[in-house]
């Protein structure tokens, strides 16, 4: 049985919880498809971890909603919020279902993955190692989109997800980047992050 976080009320605003749930659920779907189509177990494990986190957030959100309702009007309006949160939770569950295809060693038929790779951009997980030329640079400054057609969609740093990071974010040793782009660009980015490539090209 997976570890279940203990749920304790924490005063976090409904807005903050909902934004986080929505952003995570969207990230999870992207990560999960990539994990399944490219048979990437690490990405799949990330998705399963995120799914448990979204479950916790859903509990906290329900608590906030219950506290916030004072009268009939509140109850009507907040029911809508609760429904939306439930739908977002279901989407994160759907992402976990995709990830499970990988973790349960079922896999996707190789011809289909191959065809899919032609039409979809791929996501990758890149570990930043200590000799990487990217360390200490701001995401902006790297100009990844223009240089190699790569977009950073998230950073996993000290166990926390930074989704859609700002350009001012500085790359640090130990960061894990989730990047999207054409296969060649993504490979180049990964080599830079791991320090296998020493210099940024033009």
């Amino acid at each position: 049985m997976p570890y279940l976080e203990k749920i304790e009320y924490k005063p976090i605003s409904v807005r903050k919880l909902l934004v986080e749930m929505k952003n995570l659920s969207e990230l999870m779907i992207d990560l999960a498809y990539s994990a399944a189509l490219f048979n990437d177990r690490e990405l799949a494990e990330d998705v399963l971890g995120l799914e448990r986190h979204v479950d916790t957030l859903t509990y906290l959100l329900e608590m906030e909603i219950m506290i916030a309702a004072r009268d009939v009007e509140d109850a009507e309006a907040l029911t809508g919020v609760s429904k939306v949160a439930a739908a977002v939770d279901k989407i994160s569950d759907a992402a976990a279902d995709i990830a499970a295809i990988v973790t349960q060693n079922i896999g996707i038929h190789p011809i289909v993955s191959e065809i899919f790779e032609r039409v979809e951009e791929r996501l990758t997980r890149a570990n930043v190692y200590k000799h990487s030329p990217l360390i200490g640079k701001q995401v902006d400054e790297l100009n990844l989109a223009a240089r190699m057609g790569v977009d950073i969609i998230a950073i996993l740093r000290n166990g926390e997800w930074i989704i859609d990071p700002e350009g001012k974010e500085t790359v640090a040793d130990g960061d894990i980047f989730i990047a999207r782009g054409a296969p060649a660009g993504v490979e180049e980015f990964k080599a830079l992050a791991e320090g296998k490539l020493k210099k940024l090209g033009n």
Partner: protein
Amino acid sequence: MPDKYREKFEEIAEQFVELKDTSELMMDLAYSSLLLNSKELAKDVQKLEEHVDELHTEFELAVLSSGFHEKETKGLLGLIRLGVVTEKIADSAAEISEVVLRGIEPHPVLKLAIEEAEETVTYMQVTKHSELANKTLRKACIPEKTGMWVLAIRREGRYVRPKPNAEIKAGDILIASGYADGESDLKRLASP
């Protein structure tokens, strides 16, 4: 591997891409319907949900009738599960749009959470003489010119996801959202 077999798989992969794209399009439309409290958009989401159900059945039948070999059963099970997931995502989108159709006034916190500068949604037909006709979305630069972005393209009763390479055709209806000011600019581009 015989070509016929490969062809069959190309077809299955295409069907899956359509399912995936449609389910993701539905999510975008569902959030927008909520944000704008638009029953029209919400109804589009509901219609798409029925469409996804049909696509999903066709997809499953195609997988099951692919004439696969026994050693491929796992890979095909994976594919069937992917199909189930797209259906689940489409259902979630439909549930979000249902909140709007039930007449529940969206709570202000939902607007804050969806966090996009959307004021309005508009349905605009592309006429024969429009400069947008036969351009890809990337070339059309609609957000730059109008401050509105295309949520979906409705074509002959179907919905096309607005990928940058999608081509706009005369007769298309663009479903776009953005600042109210942009509506007249979009009209100038699409229906001059």
